[in-house]
Structures are given as C-alpha cells and as structure tokens.
C-alpha cells in the first residue's frame, strides 16, 4: 500500500524536486516560496536526494539571479531546479530562452500566479506561464495536489529523455496551498522512472575543461535561422516521451494520465477544454450533468507545450458539436487567449470533417472562484445555436458584456461530503488547528480530506476562513464551500462585520466562541443574524474558548479548544478517539517546543468539552442590536459604492463598470474602515502628560494625535473631551489635546512603552494607559470626530518642525494601515508624510509597505484639508529606485521647461511675479507656502489665455512648487533585488530620497534571509543562522562622496531620526536613509519594538550616523557618528529576539556564531569611529602652526 500523506501542493512538489536534484537556486515569491523553504530546511538537516547526497540550496538576490545560477549549474552538469511564480518567472525569461535553446534538461516548478497589470495580485491564474510560451519550454499542468506530486516526477523523467526543459505548473494557492490527502511516491517509484543513464548523459553534456567546447556563441544572419530550426526533432518527440512516462507511471501507481484526457459522455456534443485546478471542478460538473443524461464532456489539458494536435484531436469525441476553451489568463488585444488559439488551430488542422465550433473565454483570474454553477452556465450557453465567443465566466461584465449568466445559488456538492467552514482571526490559531484536523482525518481515517484557507490582506486583525471537506471519495471541488453543514465562528465580533452564515446550509450546526454566558450569548447576536439562524434552522452550540485557554495558561491561543468542540459536534470520529488523536497531533506539532507547551494544550483539550453547551434558539429574533453599516454614511460615494462591498467581503459582486479602468484609486480611504480590532486602547491622562510628542511619533497607525488650538475652538467639544494648557513657549494661551482613534487603533501599546511621563503616585501608570476599548468606543468616536474638526497648526507659522515635540502637531498623511500591530516600518512613513507628505511623490517597492500601503480595499495614504497629499505608486520589486528616478527626471525636465516658459513670458505675466517665481527660496515651509501663492496667482493670470505657451505653462505650473521624490522599500529590495538600480540611482546625483525600511528579512513573504540579515540570525533560507555579516549598505553609498547617508533607529534616538529626514530632504542630491525597523519576523514582543531599537544602538549593532556631503565644503568631517561606544554586548540585545534565541536552540555552534557576530560588530564600530575621528585628526594635523600662534 502506498503511504498516504496530507500535504499541500507546495510540499508535495518540493518533496519530489528535492529528491531529484543536486542544486537548487531559490528566491522567495508568493505563492511558490514554501517550496524553496522546504528544500532549504530539508537540506539544512541533511535530508538526502535519491542518490544519497544532500542537495545544495542557494538563495539568490532575485529570480533573474536564480535563473542565471540555474543556467550555470545546468551547464556544468548538475541536476538543477528552482521554484517561482508571477514576476519571478518573468525575470527568468531571458535565461529560459537560453536553457531551451541549448536543449538542457531541467524542471522549474511553478505555482502559477497573476501578473501585476492594473494592480498586483498574489493569487492564482496562468498569466505568468502563458507569458513564457515562446521560450521553447515544455509545459505540464497539474490540476490537484496529487497530480502536482505525480507530474513533478513525470516532468523530470521526461526532460532528461527529451532534453527539452519543463515548466511544471500548478495553480497558485488553489493547488499550492490546498491541503489534500494524497498517495505519496516512494523512492522506488522515483527510481523506476528516472533513468540513471539519462542522468549521466546530462552530466556528460556539461562544460568541462577536460573536454572543452564553447556554448553560447554569437551567430550571424548566415546561420542563426538554420541553427534555430535544429531543435525541431526534439520537440516532436516530447509528447510521446511524456505519454510514455505517464504510462510507466500508471503501471507502478495505478494512476493513468494522458496528455489530453477526456471525461464525460462518449457521445458528448458539448465539450469544455481547460487545464489546471479548474479542470477538477469541471470534471465534477461533467459527471453531475452526465448522470442527468446531458451529453457533455471535458478535455483536461496536461501537456500544453509542445501542443500535440494529434493527441488533442484523438481526445475530442467525434460527436462534439461545440468546444468551449477556457483560459485562466488574459491577453488583451489578441484574437483569443492562448489555449483557445491552440485549440482552434488543432481543430482546423486536425479535424477535416464535422468540425466542431470552437468558442473561448476567460475564467478564474487572480483566484476568482470557478464553480460548477459557472460551468453549468457555460454548458447552457453551448446549447445555443450561436453561443457567445470570447466570453468571461464568474464576473458581471456590464461594460463589454462578455460575461455568461449563471445561477450563483446552484450547488452540486455530493451529500456524502462533510463540509465545514471556520471563521477565525489570524492570531487565534484557527488555521493551524484546522490543518491539524485535516491531517488527523486524512491520515487516521478512510476519509479523503481537503483544506483550503482564505486570508485577507491585513497583517493585523486579519480574518481567516478555513474550508474543510471530508468524504469517502477523492475530492474534486476546487472551489470554496457554498453549502456548509458545519460553521464555526471563532470571533464573536465577526457577526457584526461579515455575513458569516451565508454559506451555512439549512439545518447546519453553528459553533460560536462566545465571550458571554449561556444566558447572554443569544441576546448579543445581531437581529439579522438571529433571523438567519431561525430561518436556516441552525443547531447552535457555544463555548467560551478564550476563557478555557486563559485558565489553562494558553493566553489567547484557543484553537485547541475549538478543535475539540468541532470534533465533538461533527462526529467525524468517536469522541474518545478524536481526543486521543488531537493529543497525538499536539505532541507531534508542538512536542519539539517543549513539554510545557504540550501539557497546557492537553489541559485545554481536557477542559474543553465541559464548557461546550447547546444554545436554545427561540422562534423569533429578539435582539435589539442591528448590523451597523459597513462604512459611515458620510463616506464619499466611491467608498460607499466600491470600497464598502469589498470591506464586507462582497467584492466579487462588483460589476466591471464599477472599477477604475487604469488602476487609479482615491487616497484617504482607510479612515472609513473602522476595524475595531483592539481589545485595549491608550487613554490620555492630561495631568501626567508632558506633551513631548513621543507617543504621537511612534504610533505605527497614526491613531494618537495631538493639536494645539485657542480655547474657544473647544467651546463645542463633546462631553469628556480633555485638554490641557499648551506647554509651548509663545502658545501658553492655547489648549493642547491628545486624542486616540479608538476604532482604528490596533492596541499595540508602543505608545505606552515610549511614554516617559510617570504618575508620581502610581509609577506603573503613565500619561497614556491601555484601557479596555469597548466601553470607550462610542465616546471615543465622538471625540475623534471633534478632534478632526479642530484646526491644524499652520505649517508655515512660527514653529519650526525640527523637534519631536513640534512635529506632533503636523497632520499625518499616512493613517490606519493594515500593517502588523506595532509595526516598526510605518512610524517612519508616517513621519515622512507629516514632514513632506503634501509635496511628495512616493515610489514604493513591492513588499510589506506596498501591501499595507496599497492593497485594496483601502489605502492609508491620505490628503490634508487642502486636498494635497502623497501621490503613491508601486511599479515592481526590482525596479523601484529606477521608477522613482523616472519621477524625478520628469520633475526636473518639467521644472526646466516651466522656467523656460516663465522666462519667455516674463513680460506678459509680469516681471515681478516671474522673477519671484524663479528666485523663490523654498527651503522652509513659509517659502513653500509663499511659492504656492505665487503659483496660484500665475495660474489665474494664465487662465483663459489662448497662447500655446500659456496653456503649456498652466499645465506645468504646479511643478514650480518644490516637490520631493521618496523611493521607499524594504531591505529585500534595497540590499538584494533592487540593489543594482539603487546603486545607479544614488550615483546619478539626482535629487531623490531613498528610505530603506530595514527589517533584515523579506518580511512580506515570511521572513527569508536577505543580505541585510545579520550574522547568527535564524531566518528562512538561513535555518542554521546566517553565516555572514550584514552588508554595510550605508558605507557603500558613502563611498560616492556626494550621497547623503543616514542610519537611524527611531526607538534609539528619535531626534536623530527627525534630523536625518530633514537633512536628507533639504540636500539637493541623492539621499539614503537606512531605518531600523523592528518586525514580527524578529520574534519579539512588538510592544517592546522601540526598546529593542535602543538596545540595537547601545550594542553598536546598529550605530546611528549621518553623512552629509555639504559639511565638506565647510571644512568639516561629513561623517557624524551619533552613537556612543557600545555599552552592552551583542547578546544583551540579540537574546530578546526569537531569531537569535532560536540559534541556541537549533545550532550547536551558536556560541561561536555569537562571538563572530560580536567581533564583526566591534570591527565595524572601530571603522566608524576612525571615520568620525579621521577628519579631526586631519584638521589637527593641518593647523598646528595656528594653534601655536594662538598660544
């Protein structure tokens, strides 16, 4: 019997790839990153491949780099692979042409994903692989986790024999992240298909100085064409080679695959053609319709390239009247999508008589749901004499009218399948517990099991929905559960925010984690929810899982409790057996983390059932609570109509016409979201407050703000609104207020940690103190609204914004992002927005900051009262510096042209105005304000003039006001993938500002090592601790001599941070700020993030400095070291973080690595000290005579 395992597609594929390769070059990109992570982890612990040696895994700086390394490794004879998706695959295209052109055996494993066009998407479709069609690679598509594993082997065997490289493709997320019970392939299965002779033949083709040849020549018109045609015979053989291996595979495993596999009625008239995971749902649908007498069929495409016309035609039933080809990609402007075009060609070339009609359409872009209901809609359409061609499925296209109608209520799920949906919070462990449950059921029972997990795009307070299916037959439902017989709501608050019962079938069981007593729970459900429960006749059970978890010492991790309740109610396993299995799973999952953890989870299991109770459902809804509107009625129309449905999880219902055509969205939308995710929020105590502004500065979500205004401005303040006498010289007659947006706060408590003011009678209390949010919510909302109505302190007034205290009065134009609670990056962005936001263009590299900055539904980038604010855009991950430079080039050109026009129109516009515009000093806020007024005057004079010069100048006038270009991204961009561009942009000498939010790992993709990762830190792709020290990016930049460089850490020295931002912006040239950003990936208590920054500086791990080229002109040392010599050791800083503590727990060489890290830090510190002193010494050396004279 084959071994049964319960894994996701990524793990299933990585297992085979790791077994069948010697060299693996990797780079993280969603959704393929886990494949690289698995490979790296397995190699790190010495797991061997089929030939008994541990594959060498190398992380590269980009996918382009990975492809280059793969190419080199292949050319020297290693069995080599990589894993990638989306933009990553696009970066590999140049090498893919080479690898194919040189007839090189390799398989790249792809978790297929959308390509960034009008917007980025991390989700699945075939846009990426379709972009590589011309490279000459074979393409084998898997539709399920089982197939993904099986095809990984078949592709490898086939490439070795055919010499044509293979893309092995599974659908991103739907297959890569779907957990399924599958039959595992054994080493013997692998050996049976992979020919040792062919492996050695691959090696024999390698470059070697012992049998030298050259490959990769440059060719001329005389031979290039002919040489290109030499490969044809190789491609012609591929289909039969692949089918041959599929047949051999079937002999061993019983699973027979075909290049084009037909399912359905032998006399089908209507046939759909598609590939990937959607084909599974199509098979389910065809079987359903066939059982009801419909003459329908399906052709699953496995080998898409090389496309065998012969094999395809063979698969088409002679009875076929109409063929519908479904493409999971879009090729705008084409005659049809790629698979459609291939099928049309095949039908024309291969079927001479009774040619069926071929229509094509698109479905499932960016993991858009693809359901049997949609397919049934398509089959209905195919009945028509003239079915619609170039259609879309699953959306409502009211613009071009491409979409086919279908009945969204239609469900064909077989009754024997148990379907459960769980609504949880990212932080409550729901998904982890469900993954465990699937393993238990998949591996301990005869049931087939499937798990798919839906996440939202927030990093704090994120919602998760788990879809679990169990049944006696393999599960082909590659779509979300629409009719669940079990729904668990792990967060009571979700009842108000989402339609959690939408998928509950009639008579389903509902399990609620209720913080209320059995008597109170029903009354706390909103009226509309009660109605749904009654109408659907749901069986309701409740448990206070948080209480159970707390009582056994598990804090907020109540997943185990809910898991026990699920097993108890679902009856998948007998209760006692279920409990034993849960405990086994706990030991297996958590055992490595220590006995204490296991013990507490066991205690939770034992305590759970006693707290589970059925809830009596009355005949009528009684609740006085009603569902609140998704957004305030005061929100703008766009937010009401477009954003709100997305927020409510109903974005799928938005028609095409509702969405902007070019990806342009309004800013200032996060303010309408009101997520209410904090259990506790800070509450101000004016009596203790010293008005220093530190809390305002560090708040990652811009929810703490202050204002100073005349007393009369507070006349209409709501009850309880607090103020204090302003502690500013010259503003003593004004009132100060500090307010908290309680509905937007994430409860991170960074603010409380940095508050320096302590209550003299109770030193544990400060000027702000964490307080339960719920009782403050109503009043807090009123206070916040009133606060926003207060006037802002004028930017151009007497205060200069060079101190933290004064900066607190500037309106942040970056607010309420979905970043992690306590994020270390966002305080810097918020500061940037306060200081320069009203005149900034922001180029944002892909990564955390582009996700919390620009992932729909909302954006935190916002506008001030005048409607000014940051204009933001994300191009790619790798090109961000160049993207930002492009913005600057435009500005520079436009300014030059505008100034030329001013010069040409000096007389007609008025010499005084023109001269003032041209000579304006915009070095401070007052100067900028004055220039804005001049520009307004200029515009009024230009308005209505018919002169082309005037019209041009009018269109350009705004550039005459100083603009700032900020190029923002993380260390993955700056140190690795974008480093070449960053270096070039710095070298350009142009006036651009680069802000590196350095978290020392690829945070957004889950903490992979970058060149910013420090020696000894444990990260993905550095599982034994990174062996080399962090790159000194600042020193590289300083080597130019004309780049302003600063290294900052807000928690270590906020004044230095502020100074660096101001100096960088004022410098008329390139500036680079490297900002220490504590991160969830460090494994720290995020509330202590700022404290950790302080320790980083105190240990000299993160010395603070500023390099200002302007100082050279003043005869001063441009390098200023702002840190003092180390006063604590590296370990005193590092051991507060899990990434370093783990080193001790997993690497016996940990102490030596800590020692090496310490030495590297001290060596670097010494260099900095010398840099700081050298100028003084030089100066001293230059001036001895003068000194003597003075004496």
């Amino acid at each position, binding site marked *: 019997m084959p071994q049964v395992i319960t894994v996701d597609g990524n793990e299933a594929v990585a297992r085979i790839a790791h077994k069948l390769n010697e060299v693996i070059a990797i780079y993280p990109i969603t959704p393929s990153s886990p494949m690289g992570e698995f490979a790296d982890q397995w190699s790190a612990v010495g797991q061997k491949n089929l030939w008994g040696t541990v594959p060498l895994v190398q992380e590269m700086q980009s996918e382009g780099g990975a492809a280059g390394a793969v190419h080199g490794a292949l050319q020297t004879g290693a069995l080599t692979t990589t894993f990638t998706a989306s933009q990553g695959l696009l970066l590999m295209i140049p090498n893919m042409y080479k690898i194919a052109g040189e007839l090189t055996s390799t398989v790249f494993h792809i978790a297929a994903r959308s390509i960034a066009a009008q917007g980025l998407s991390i989700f699945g479709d075939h846009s990426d692989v379709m972009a590589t069609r011309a490279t000459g690679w074979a393409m084998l598509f898997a539709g399920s986790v089982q197939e993904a594993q099986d095809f990984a082997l078949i592709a490898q065997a086939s490439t070795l024999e055919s010499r044509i490289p293979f893309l092995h493709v599974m659908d991103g997320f739907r297959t890569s992240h779907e957990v399924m019970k599958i039959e595992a392939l054994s080493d013997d299965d692998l050996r049976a298909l992979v020919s040792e002779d062919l492996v050695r033949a691959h090696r024999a083709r390698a470059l070697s100085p012992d049998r030298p040849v050259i490959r990769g020549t440059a060719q001329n018109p005389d031979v290039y064409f002919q040489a290109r045609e030499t490969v044809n015979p190789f491609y012609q053989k591929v289909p039969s080679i692949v089918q041959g291996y599929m047949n051999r595979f079937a002999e061993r495993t019983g699973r027979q695959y075909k290049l084009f596999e037909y399912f359905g009625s032998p006399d089908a008239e209507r046939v759909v053609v598609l590939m990937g995971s959607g084909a599974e749902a199509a098979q389910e649908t065809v079987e359903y319709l066939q059982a009801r007498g419909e003459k329908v069929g399906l052709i699953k495409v496995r080998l898409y390239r090389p496309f065998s016309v012969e094999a395809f035609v063979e698969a088409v039933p002679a009875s076929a009247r109409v063929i519908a080809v479904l493409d999971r990609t879009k090729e705008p402007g084409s005659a049809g999508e790629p698979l459609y075009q291939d099928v049309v060609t095949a039908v024309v070339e291969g079927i001479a008589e009774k040619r069926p009609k071929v229509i094509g359409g698109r479905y499932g872009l960016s993991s858009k749901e693809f359901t049997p209901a949609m397919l049934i809609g398509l089959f209905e359409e195919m009945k028509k004499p003239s079915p619609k061609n170039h259609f879309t499925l699953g959306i409502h296209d009211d613009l071009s009218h491409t979409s086919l109608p279908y009945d969204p209520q239609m469900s064909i799920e077989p009754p024997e399948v148990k379907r459960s949906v769980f609504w949880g919070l990212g*932080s409550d462990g729901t998904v*982890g517990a469900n993954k465990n449950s699937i393993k238990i059921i998949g591996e301990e029972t005869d049931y087939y099991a499937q798990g798919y997990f839906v996440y939202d795009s927030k990093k704090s307070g994120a919602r998760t929905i788990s879809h679990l299916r169990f049944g006696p037959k393999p599960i082909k439902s590659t779509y979300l559960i629409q009719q669940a017989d079990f729904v668990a709501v792990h967060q009571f608050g979700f009842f108000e925010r989402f339609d959690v019962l939408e998928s509950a079938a009639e008579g389903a069981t509902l399990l609620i984690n209720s913080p209320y007593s059995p008597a109170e729970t029903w009354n706390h459900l909103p009226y509309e929810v009660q109605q749904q429960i009654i109408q659907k006749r749901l069986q309701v059970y409740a448990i206070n899982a948080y209480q159970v978890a707390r009582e056994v010492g598990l804090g907020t991790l109540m997943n185990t409790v809910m898991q026990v309740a699920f097993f108890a109610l679902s009856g998948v396993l007998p209760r006692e057996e279920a409990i034993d299995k849960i405990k086994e799973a706990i030991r297996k999952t958590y055992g490595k983390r220590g006995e204490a953890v296991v013990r507490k989870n066991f205690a939770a299991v034992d305590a759970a059932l006693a707290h589970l109770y059925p809830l009596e459902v009355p005949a009528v809804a009684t609740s006085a609570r009603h569902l609140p509107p998704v957004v305030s009625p005061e929100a703008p129309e766009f937010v009401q109509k477009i954003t709100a449905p997305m927020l409510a999880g109903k974005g799928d219902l938005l028609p095409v016409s509702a969405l902007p055509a070019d990806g342009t969205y309004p800013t200032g939308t996060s303010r309408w979201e009101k997520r209410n995710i904090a259990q506790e929020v800070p509450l101000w105590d004016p009596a203790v407050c010293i008005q220093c502004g530190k809390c305002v500065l560090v708040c990652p979500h811009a929810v703490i703000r202050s204002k100073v205004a005349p007393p009369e401005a507070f006349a209409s303040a709501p009850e309880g609104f607090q103020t204090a006498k302003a502690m500013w010289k010259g503003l003593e007659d004004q009132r100060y207020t500090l307010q908290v947006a309680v509905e937007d706060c994430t409860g991170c408590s960074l603010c409380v940690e940095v508050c320096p003011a302590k209550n003299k009678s109770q030193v544990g209390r400060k000027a702000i103190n964490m307080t339960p949010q719920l009782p403050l919510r109503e009043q807090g909302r009123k206070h916040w609204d009133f606060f926003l109505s207060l006037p802002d302190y004028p930017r151009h007034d007497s205060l200069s914004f060079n101190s933290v205290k004064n900066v607190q009065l500037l309106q942040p134009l970056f607010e309420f992002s979905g970043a992690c609670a306590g994020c270390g990056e966002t305080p810097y962005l918020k500061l940037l927005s306060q200081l320069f936001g009203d005149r900034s263009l922001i180029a944002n590299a892909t990564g955390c900051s582009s996700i919390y900055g620009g992932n729909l539904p909302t954006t935190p980038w916002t506008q001030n009262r005048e409607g000014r604010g940051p204009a933001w855009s994300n191009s790619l991950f790798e090109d961000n510096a160049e993207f930002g430079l492009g913005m600057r080039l435009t500005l520079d050109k436009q300014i030059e042209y505008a100034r030329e026009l001013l010069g040409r129109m000096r007389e007609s516009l008025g010499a005084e105005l023109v001269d003032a515009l041209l000579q304006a000093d915009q070095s401070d806020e007052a100067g900028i304000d004055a220039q804005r007024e001049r520009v307004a005057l200029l515009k009024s004079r230009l308005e209505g003039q018919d002169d082309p010069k005037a019209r041009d100048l009018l269109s350009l006038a705004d550039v005459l006001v100083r603009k700032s270009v900020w190029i923002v991204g993380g260390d993955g961009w700056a140190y690795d993938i974008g480093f070449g561009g960053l270096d070039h942009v710095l070298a350009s000498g142009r006036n651009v500002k680069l802000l590196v939010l350095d978290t020392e790992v690829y945070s957004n*993709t889950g903490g992979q090592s970058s060149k910013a990762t420090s020696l000894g830190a444990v990260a993905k792709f*550095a599982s034994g601790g990174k062996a080399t020290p962090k790159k000194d990016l600042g020193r590289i930049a300083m080597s130019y001599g004309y780049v302003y460089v600063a290294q900052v850490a807000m928690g270590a020295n906020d004044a230095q941070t502020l100074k660096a931002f101001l100096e960088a912006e004022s410098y008329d040239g390139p500036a680079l700020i490297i900002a220490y950003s504590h991160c969830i990936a460090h494994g720290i208590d995020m509330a202590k993030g700022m404290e950790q920054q302080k320790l980083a500086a105190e240990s000299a791990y993160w010395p603070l400095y500023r390099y200002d080229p302007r100082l050279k002109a003043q005869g001063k040392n441009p390098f200023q070291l702002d840190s003092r010599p180390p006063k604590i050791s590296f370990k005193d800083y590092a051991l507060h973080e899990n990434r370093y503590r783990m080193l001790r727990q997993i690497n016996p060489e940990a102490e030596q690595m800590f020692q090496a890290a310490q030495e590297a830090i001290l060596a670097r510190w010494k260099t900095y000290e010398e840099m700081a002193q050298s100028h003084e010494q030089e100066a001293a050396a230059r001036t001895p005579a003068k000194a003597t004279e003075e004496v």
Partner: protein
Amino acid sequence: MTQPDLGTTYLGLKLAHPLVASASPLSYTLDGIRSLEDAGIAAVVMYSLFEEQIEQESHALHHYLEYGAHSYAEALDYFPKAHEFNVGPHEYLELLRKAKENTQIPIIGSLNGVSSGGWTEYARLMEEAGADALELNLYYLPTDPTLTSLEVEEMYLDVVREVSQSLSIPIAVKVGPFFSNFSHMAARFVQAGASGLVLFNRFYQPDFDLEHLEVTPNLVLSRPDELRLPLTWVAILYGRIQADFAITSGVHTHLEVLKSMMAGARVTQMASELLKNGLGRVGEILQDLKHWMEEREYESIRQMQGSMSQINVANPDAFERGNYMKVLRSWRPDPTGMLLR
C-alpha cells in the same frame, strides 16, 4: 611537622578540602567548570536549573513561532521549521554529563523546581546525567497573604520527600533563614530525606531606580559579614541534627572557612570572592588555611569541625537571647566618646 589534613566529607563524598564552588555563573560552561577544577576547588555545585525558566523558554518559543502565523497569505509563518529545538533541560544535562566526563572532582547538580512533577523529573535526569549529589534550591517568595507558614513549610517538605524517594544519590537542601523556628525546619528537612543543609539561600531583593522610577534587579555580591547568620545557625544545629552542613554566604578568606568549620560545617561554598578576585583565590585561601593551621598546630580540618558549636563552647548562651541583650546594651551612639562631648 606534617602538613595538616584538609580533607573533609560532604554528602558522602570525600573531598580534598572544604572549598566548594557554589551555584553561580562560574559553572555556566564546561570551560568554567574545568577552570574551577584547575584552580583547585574540591567540588562544584553547578548553577541552578530553573524549571520555571525552561517552561518560559518553551512558551516563548511556541508563542513567537505562532505569533502572526497563518494570518496572511504571503507569510504563513515567519521562521524556518526546525528539525529539533534544544529546549528543556537538555543543555544543562549535557553540561553536567560533559563535566563528569572531563573532570575528576565531584559535580553536584542544583535544581529549582516549580511543579512537583518538575522537581522529581529534573532531579532524576540529573542523577542519570551523572550528578554525584543534588542540591535542591528551595527558593519561593510567598506573596499570597492567605497562604499560611505551615502550608509553605509542608510544600517544601513534600518536595524534599518526593525527590529523596525518587533518587539514590544524596540530596542537600539550600534554604533561606526565614522560618519561625529554623531548628525545627532543619530537623524536618532531614527527616524528609535531606542529607545536607546549605545555609543560606540569598533572596532576590530588587532595588529602586529613582531616576527612572523603576524596580530593578540588583544582585549584590556577598560580603564577609554575611557569614554571621549561617555561622550562628550551623553552630546551633551542629550535633543536634544529623546532617552535613555547608555554609554558603560571606566566605571570602581562610578566616571564614575556619570559622565555618569550627561552627560545624563540612564545607564552605563560595562564588562572590571568585567572581570578584578570580579563581586564583582558591589556591591562596588554601595556602592561608594551611599556614594558619600549621601555626596553631591543627592536625586536620576534622579536628576543628564543630569545635565552636553551641554544644561545644564554654558559654552556650553566647548564641542565645541573653547575649543578644548584652550586645544591645553595649551599643553606644558615640562609642569613641569624642563626638558628643
């Protein structure tokens, strides 16, 4: 005259002399333990294994591996999945095992537990790892006003009873002095199975940082005058309770060693002096000890052990209340008689 015999026995272990390293950072590493042996120490009590710390590490690891996991599609976790984590007492036991393999001197494990299961489990593991004896570090600061002293005492005794029953190596109990009747408690510890009493545990007493208004941990190294309290109690208990006594506070020179021996201790444990002035102090103290004994013609340490205990001194009341009152009366605000003239 022949060299004085410095040999002593403690918990059934024959020791070359009475200088033993107490539980301290000196034994954090194998190199540290070897250096103690090279310096001439007679036995090493390893630093204390705190059950609470192990639990905390385990929980911290679990917490941070789960924190933020399965929340966001692009980052389902933030750390590599390790094959094995070195959490739990593994590191301590490995060090103990290596110390036994690489040194000739007795190695005494030291344990501070929380749960009854934890005490016996970790004690057993230490025995398996090769510990020659075990020191139970009974450190508990009762802050619950409803908890009676009897309950606290029973809790201590339960631990000693359970551990001694589950081990075959001897155990010593290291406690603080804060009992209503320490003599009674000492006797009950011995009844419960303790072969030795280590006097006294130094309780953690945090300090206040007035600048930042914070409570700060502040470990102060011991001073010679701290010897008085254990000296008094060893002298009182000697001969009354059948246990090996170790004195562990305030031992800095040969003089404190001599006093301890005369009070009735089998060994003196030291750390502060070695941390402050280096391991060379072991040789110097031994030299001074020998010199002092030679000068006064003592033949052996055994000869002096207990010689100044309460049962052996001419004026036993010097240890009791009468003497205390004399001391009080002898105190003058101006002992020189110069200042208040």
